[in-house]
């Protein structure tokens, strides 16, 4: 099942106010007699409300609204205009990321970071499974030595995916575990080392410094490492997601976003705000608790799923 269907499934299960409201607005604005005119104030306000309710944020929302209120002479439909605007915001960073994804050094080191409780460990398990299916052999590094039972949780995922794991005692220096894992990854000829880090609030300077240390160790051991730094964001997060992305990017050099828990009613609109403000692409979306519930992100399907006509 593709992203579109999964998202649609999530949406269908709830009374999707967002979609219904959007349909109402669009119906009025796209009526034949209204099509040739600019969008009126009332409609613009209603649209603003919808976008804000989707956590898209004040900045991106006002840009989208002002961009779509002036229609081109051809009288394009409001639905398409809104979709295009969001797509434009989402696609810029995606293309940039794809072109710069050239990788040097082996193993390919992927750092997974984020605040507490967003689903980092689960994402690692799913990523390992996906890599394995693609024929690349991953090694999991359990560098969350802080949270109680985090390593055990990851071990279970590793077993499920049938992937090696390098772990240490709780309370160890995570950078040391990363060093061990990279050394093991080299010795065992693994393609990818997936590093699970402890959840940390981006405002905790000392914990953020720990990430910097992990980064330095990785860079010292493998050329170009960490090749990818994925920031895991909970789709229910609000505008604080922006602050998280900003801080983690400045300390850990985030290269992409993983949006988790998209199978709920939250649609992770803050990712649009992040793409808008920080030009960070969404790489994957998590849509369930199963092993296969991690999908590559496609801006078009995402936008379609959010603003699709009532089904």
């Amino acid at each position: 099942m593709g992203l579109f269907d999964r998202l649609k499934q999530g949406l269908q299960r709830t009374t999707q106010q967002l979609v219904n409201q959007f349909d109402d607005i669009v119906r009025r604005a796209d009526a034949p007699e209204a099509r040739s005119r600019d969008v009126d104030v009332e409609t613009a306000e209603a649209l603003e409300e919808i976008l804000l309710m989707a956590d898209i944020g004040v900045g991106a929302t006002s840009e989208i609204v002002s961009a779509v209120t002036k229609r081109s002479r051809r009288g394009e439909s409001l639905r398409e205009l809104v979709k295009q605007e969001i797509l434009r915001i989402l696609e810029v960073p995606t293309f940039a990321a794809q072109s710069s994804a050239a990788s040097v050094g082996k193993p390919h080191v992927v750092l997974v970071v984020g605040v507490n409780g967003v689903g980092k460990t689960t994402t690692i398990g799913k990523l390992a499974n996906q890599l394995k299916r693609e024929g690349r052999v991953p090694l999991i590094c359990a560098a969350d030595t802080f949270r109680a039972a985090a390593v055990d949780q990851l071990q279970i995922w590793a077993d499920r995916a049938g992937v090696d794991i390098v772990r240490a005692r709780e309370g160890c220096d995570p950078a040391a575990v990363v060093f061990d894992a990279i050394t093991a990854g080299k010795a065992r000829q693994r393609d990818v080392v997936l590093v699970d880090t402890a959840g940390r609030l981006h405002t905790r300077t000392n914990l953020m410094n720990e990430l910097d240390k992990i980064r330095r160790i990785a860079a010292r051991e493998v050329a170009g490492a960490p090749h990818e730094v994925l920031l895991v964001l909970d789709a229910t997060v609000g505008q604080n997601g922006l602050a998280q992305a900003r801080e983690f990017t400045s300390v850990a050099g985030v290269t992409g976003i993983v949006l988790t828990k998209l199978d709920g009613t939250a649609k992770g609109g803050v990712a649009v705000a992040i793409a808008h403000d920080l030009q960070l692409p969404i790489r994957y979306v998590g849509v369930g608790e199963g092993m296969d519930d991690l999908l590559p992100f496609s801006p078009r399907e995402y936008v379609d799923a959010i603003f699709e006509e009532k089904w």
Partner: protein
Amino acid sequence: MFDALSNRLQDVFQSIRGETRLTETTVENALREIRLALLEADVNFKVVKAFVDRVRDRAMDQAVLKSLTPSQQVVRIVRDELLALFGDAKGGLQDTSARPRVILMLGLQGSGKTTTTGKLAKWLTRQGRFPLVVSTDVRRPAAIQQLAIVAEQAGVRVHDPVGQMDPVARAKSALAEAMAVGNDVVIVDTAGRLHIDDELMRELVAIKEVSGPTDLLYVADAMTGQDAIKSAGEFNAQIGVTGVVLTKIDGDARGGAALSVVSVVGVPIAFVGSGEKLDDLEPFHADRFVSRMLGMGDVLSLIEKAEAVIDEGDAQKLEAKIRKGGFTLEDFRDQLRMLRRMGPLEKIMGMLPGLGGMKELAGQKPDEKQLSRIEAIINSMTPGERKQADILDGSRRKRVARGSGTTVEDVNRLLKQFVEMQRMLKMVGQMTGDPIAAAPKKKKRKGPFSLMK
């Protein structure tokens, strides 16, 4: 927390403070800013709208506009309205005669249920209760183990029938064990679930039925966005919620979701989780919370924190010492340690009135390292030197600097400050002193001691 929101609101108020007379235009401008500030803080769109309308109604009153201090009136209106949003319910747990009292923890994945279960158990222990915790999360890998570890750290009993993988049966047998052992509280941790997962919601209903909880605490992440109302509302509709625990408020989340949940779902906030340590759980106080939001500081919470880490006896001993002028470097170090036990400096500073804005101004976080350095310097001295700082000559200072990994200048600076502090303390004479005031960075002259009085 709420820093950004309080700063924005402070800006708004600052801008109208200078005006001797408010016009409808200035009020409108202020309202627009308030609206934006609340929206950026993730307060629900509809809540914001209603809130701004209410403030407008009251602010546009001619009596307010013509009063001598119109801007302060507006501040008061905003404060009143915020308080009204939170309602007058008290934080913490309400009294009950149920024995054992059953507390059911609900919430989405990753909101912090298991950690909060541990914190709550510890808090209850401090209240003289004897809690038992049980995990019914058979889904998330290692969740049961996590609770067992957390419970051990909190020093509470955990019910864990090995091999029993039926959540309802686990809750039921926990109750039986509590009756047998004599626990007066049972905290039931549940699996995180999406509010649209019917199967899991039915499971929760079943757990609720067998355990008959007094409290159904919905654990919500302070960073949640506009979806907060939907999820909390669903949990309330399907299971029933008696209180909210707001977690992760130690980040910079503006926590607007809290406002939304309280005002739309109509459930009071019972506790707030403010850190990674098991002690970091406090009953919610609406008035303090609102004061902090508006940058008015939260001295009460600070005093409570101070009281929790300061031993009354020690405090009196030190006080006597200071009166006699015998304050030594050793005492200074004890003071520093006490201050650090109260939590990150940043958090403490946020509670002091007026400091909210200053922090932003300085553009930097208080330097915890500086405190470590001072401690290291003092640790590198001999007991004799600590008691009698004036015997520290050049060569001793060099040794201390080497021993603590600092420079002689650092040592000199510390000693100079210490001497100054001693002099000050002597001058204050009969008063208890305030050693923290002499810490290298210019902090608010308010330490645990002056607050204890």
